[in-house]
């Protein structure tokens, strides 16, 4: 330590640090790329949904055509619904976890869930009141974001989801922070797109991997159930069941409130 530093207190040392001229790497001009992505609503390889409806339909149609034609997709197709990002990748990894229900957070009441989300929790007439309600909060760059999960136990009209004791699980993601990512594999999964009463729905069937940001950190869950995803205002909805696409769509499009 040079004598000069030895005699310095923290304030003086801080002042010395402040006068250092660091040889920073040259900063790139970020504005053109940022503004181009903002204007298009797309990042590299990303199909972002919160666009005008016309653009959205065109982008989804393009992605769907690629999937239907089995085109060798060199890169991932990424569909950003806000709370959940759907990624379609060519091949599934060799090893996946055993199927299970995704971490749900702590138990709360339906009323508390409504307060947390700032709206009544939409409940389908077909599903009726949930047997369980949970909530998790994750801190993201846009602040604290809530995820509410509703669970319905398996019953005759709601067959059990593989690896769980539930017949239906509805996750409600608040806002646009990407809390979850679903990897759908072209070789084992199916992704379909459907519009019902002006709402765009994504249907995935077959094994996929759910990456979920929770208050405990990132978790990876294998999902074998059938999953329907859609946007409901500022919320992203994810309904997992063992039901057919038509039945799941009926449930989703009949969401009343508590």
């Amino acid at each position: 330590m040079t004598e000069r530093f030895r005699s310095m207190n923290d304030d003086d040392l801080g002042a010395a640090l402040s006068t250092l001229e660091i040889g920073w790497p040259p900063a790139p001009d970020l504005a053109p790329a940022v503004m181009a992505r903002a204007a298009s609503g797309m990042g590299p390889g990303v199909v972002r949904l919160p666009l005008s409806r016309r653009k959205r339909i065109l982008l989804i149609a393009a992605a769907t055509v690629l999937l239907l034609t089995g085109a060798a997709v060199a890169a991932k197709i990424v569909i950003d619904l806000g709370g959940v990002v759907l990624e379609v990748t060519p091949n599934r990894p060799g090893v996946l976890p055993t199927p299970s229900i995704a971490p749900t957070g702590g138990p709360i009441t339906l009323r508390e869930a409504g307060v947390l989300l700032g709206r009544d929790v939409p409940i389908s007439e077909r599903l009726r009141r949930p047997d369980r309600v949970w909530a998790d909060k994750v801190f993201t760059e846009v602040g604290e974001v809530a995820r509410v999960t509703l669970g319905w136990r398996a019953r005759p009209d709601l067959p059990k989801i593989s690896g769980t004791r539930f017949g239906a699980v509805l996750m409600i993601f608040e806002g646009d922070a990407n809390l979850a990512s679903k990897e759908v594999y072209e070789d084992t999964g199916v992704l379909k797109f459907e519009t019902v009463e002006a709402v765009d729905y994504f249907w995935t069937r077959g094994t996929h991997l759910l990456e979920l940001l929770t208050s405990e950190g990132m978790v990876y869950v294998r999902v074998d159930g059938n999953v329907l995803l859609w946007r409901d205002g500022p919320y992203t909805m994810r309904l997992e069941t063992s039901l057919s696409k038509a039945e799941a769509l009926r449930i989703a499009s009949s969401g009343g409130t508590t």
Partner: protein
Amino acid sequence: MEGRPLEDAELARRAREGDDAAYEDLVKRYGQIAFRVAWLVTRDHAEAEDSAQEAFVKAYYALPRFRPDSPFRPWMLKIVANEARNRARSMRRRQGLALRTAAVSDGDAAPSPETAALAKEDREVLVAALNRLSPADREVIGYRFLLGLSESETADVLDVRLGTAKSRLSRAMARLRAVLEEPA
């Protein structure tokens, strides 16, 4: 109004209302410090550039949730730091580039008065000591002193409370002092 730059709050307000030119001004205004924040975390040029770019895009989409009565810079830099940390975690090559002093030689153009306050040898000793600190210590010292963020901004970017940021900075300074006392 011509010739006088708009305040951040006004630009952010306009950007929230869909004025892309206002947001572009904010990107230009804070592009450099955003890149440096990201570089302090990743110590990789490409990762820092990607982090900063991604953060500005995320912030653009998050503008509706930005509180207009809060300062834009720390909000933005916090998004940058989070993005950079996420990327740094997934970087296989964790050993990043070292900090170095600016290429100012005593014989060339006259150094700034600030630089002149520290002898060349002292600057090199100090930077070498910074490079021997842990990434977390270097990050907090870097935000506060190398980038000149206020204590409050440093806390925001670190995503901790002000008191936590102060104690983290104090501990980092103690460790810097200990490194300075070690034989070179």
